[in-house]
């Protein structure tokens, strides 16, 4: 199913791309200083699968270990309010805001997820600077039973990073960019017992971890008449701030993520260019340690886009 979908998308991209080249005379590439019109997009996810950490890792209290030999990732269907994304882009500035509240569908134990993510970046001449920040909270009802009582699990994470890079092209059209960033992430997991006839019990910390992060990314995007295609390769290294003296008891001190993400935007109706479809494919090469902090979309993400120029 996945391969069929991928092939269909590739076929569309190649076909549309060739069509675009034969039909239209593309304008010459713009110099970085030339201003382009602004683009405001609202993305609404229509594919409900999300990646999260396996329930056993919550029960074993090893979420903070990150990817290890133990099973890690689970894909779960979330529903309720979707998590929309708003993107505003002009030639030398781009802002992305994404967030919302979701609940699991048809899955026990029930999970509620709240998260938000803001990215701001701008360029002067070829120099790119940017910052991003996120928070995420997930609560899972009655996930651990010790002997007589069940517990709810909650995790809360937040983090930020800044970066410096190089960009050639325009955010709202086509560009190539490279980034090097640094930042900080922290996460805390807690449980609360459900004891009959005893109310207002405390939440107890299970773990609290801080990481320094170093990120590298390379991104390219090209936009033609009816299609836009971007590819981005990301690498993030996580270093524990409070070192772990024993990986078996506290996890590894150094963790890494590396993933490749492609985003394809198709404008199916030439007379109604506001409506677009977006498919985002992600491939992780080094596990998915970022799930320690927040849930993430599964490897396929389909969005409905309303785009205003």
């Amino acid at each position, binding site marked *: 199913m996945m391969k069929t979908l991928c092939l269909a998308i590739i076929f569309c991209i190649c076909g549309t791309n060739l069509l675009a080249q034969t039909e239209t005379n593309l304008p010459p590439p713009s110099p970085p200083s030339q201003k382009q019109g602004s683009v405001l997009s609202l993305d609404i996810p229509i594919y409900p699968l999300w990646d999260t950490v396996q329930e056993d890792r919550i029960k074993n209290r090893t979420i903070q270990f990150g990817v290890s030999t133990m099973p890690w990732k689970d894909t779960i269907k979330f529903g309720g309010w979707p998590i929309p994304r708003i993107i505003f882009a002009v030639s030398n500035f781009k802002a992305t805001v994404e967030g919302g509240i979701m609940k699991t569908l048809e899955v026990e134990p029930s999970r509620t997820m709240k998260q938000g993510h803001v990215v701001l970046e701008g360029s002067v001449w070829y120099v790119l600077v940017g910052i991003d920040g996120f928070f995420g909270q997930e609560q899972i009802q009655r996930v651990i039973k010790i002997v*007589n009582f069940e517990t709810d699990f909650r995790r809360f994470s937040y983090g930020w990073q800044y970066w410096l890079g190089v960009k050639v092209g325009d955010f709202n059209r086509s560009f190539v960019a490279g980034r090097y960033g640094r930042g900080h992430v922290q996460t805390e997991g807690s449980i609360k017992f459900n004891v009959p006839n005893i109310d207002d*019990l405390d939440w*107890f910390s299970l773990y609290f971890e801080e990481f320094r992060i170093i990120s590298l990314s390379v991104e*390219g995007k090209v936009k033609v008449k009816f299609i836009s295609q971007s590819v981005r390769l990301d690498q993030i290294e996580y270093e524990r701030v409070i070192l772990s003296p024993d990986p078996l008891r506290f996890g590894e001190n150094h963790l890494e993520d590396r993933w490749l993400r492609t985003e394809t935007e198709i404008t199916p109706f030439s007379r109604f260019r506001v409506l677009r479809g977006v498919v985002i494919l992600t491939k992780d090469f080094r596990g998915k340690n970022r799930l320690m902090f927040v849930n993430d979309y599964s490897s396929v993400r389909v969005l409905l886009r309303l785009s205003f120029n």
Partner: protein
Amino acid sequence: MSKRIIACCIVVVFLVVSGCDSISRIYPTSPSSTNSMGSENKTVNTQENTGNILINSGITQTINGVELSTIRGWLANIYPWEYDPKQSTVHPVSRLWTSLQKPSLSQMTEQCKQIKEFGSGAVVLEYSPNLNLDWHNYWSSNGFANGCGPFFLLYEHIYGTRFVPSDGGPKDMNNPHNRQIFKDDIDFMFKNVIVPNQSRYVTVSGRAVIYMWASSQMSGDFASLLEEVKKEYPIFFIGSGEIFSTPKGDENIERTKALDGFMEYTLGGRSDYLRTVQDYNGASFYWRNYLRKLEVETGKRHVFISTFQAAYDDTKITPPRGNPPMYARSRDEVRYHVEMIRSGMGSVYDFTGPFVVYGELPEGAAVVESQCLPTTIDTPGRFVGCGTARLQILKEYFGW
């Protein structure tokens, strides 16, 4: 033109991504995990972990006892004291203890039988090397509670001691007299209790466990004394009264480093049981994090054993101490306490214990089978747990 080149490059990369199922077969999910495990182990102090004790002339280098990590079940603290009903808030059944007497030989046998029946894995003997107290002779007379299985000593270092002051704390361990008494006490315990009973004695990596119920009361440079003694004797010191605040000041920090483990004797005498056990749980989490930082710094892994407290009531002790009595409002509050302990074992606490006061009657925490009197029966909003109710909870959770 350049846009077309960029487009071609992106499409090529896209095609690679689409076929990346094969890539995942080449690269393992987490190649870094095993490599970094190896490098991290370099920081561990191998001498601490292997129990490679320095050889000293005339002193056994390793105790061939029962390793703490192999003990399953709670640790029962037992006492050579007389039961004084006027000063006690727990009243043991006559089969186990006679009024105004120490447990007889047969009563100690019965206590051991009960302790084992309800899931204890080892006993902790309240002990003083001060022969004036006659506790040594008491324990010798019953073979150091030989019906109870593995044991280790609670070294009474606050009351009835030969330190200055002899009763109460703190003890100034910069005082040469106190330093010498400490060495003499350890020497006495080692030669007269540990070595003769080593097949039953509880050890950590071959080092005999000695528990100090109020190590925080040993002020001054106690750390260097502990290290000095550990060079001469294979002893593993477990302290108490340390976990509720992060140590401040060089002497406190060094004492914490020099101790080998931690196990609270009591959770205190506040009036609200629920608040007390929750605060203990929170403090334990922060203490484990503190020990983690110490382990990174020193390479030494400290043991951390949990403590169970059924109640606290010292209102009959004369002269009055002024502590409010503390009872759970219901059996479920006690269950909640043990549930939190069970939940933390293996992460916050080591997978040993918890430590339980079995027979200290004046402070009301004892879990020994007790008489259900009008003053000790459960009432609405007050769970005392007379009879074997406290023991049954322990068995339910820790009777492995």
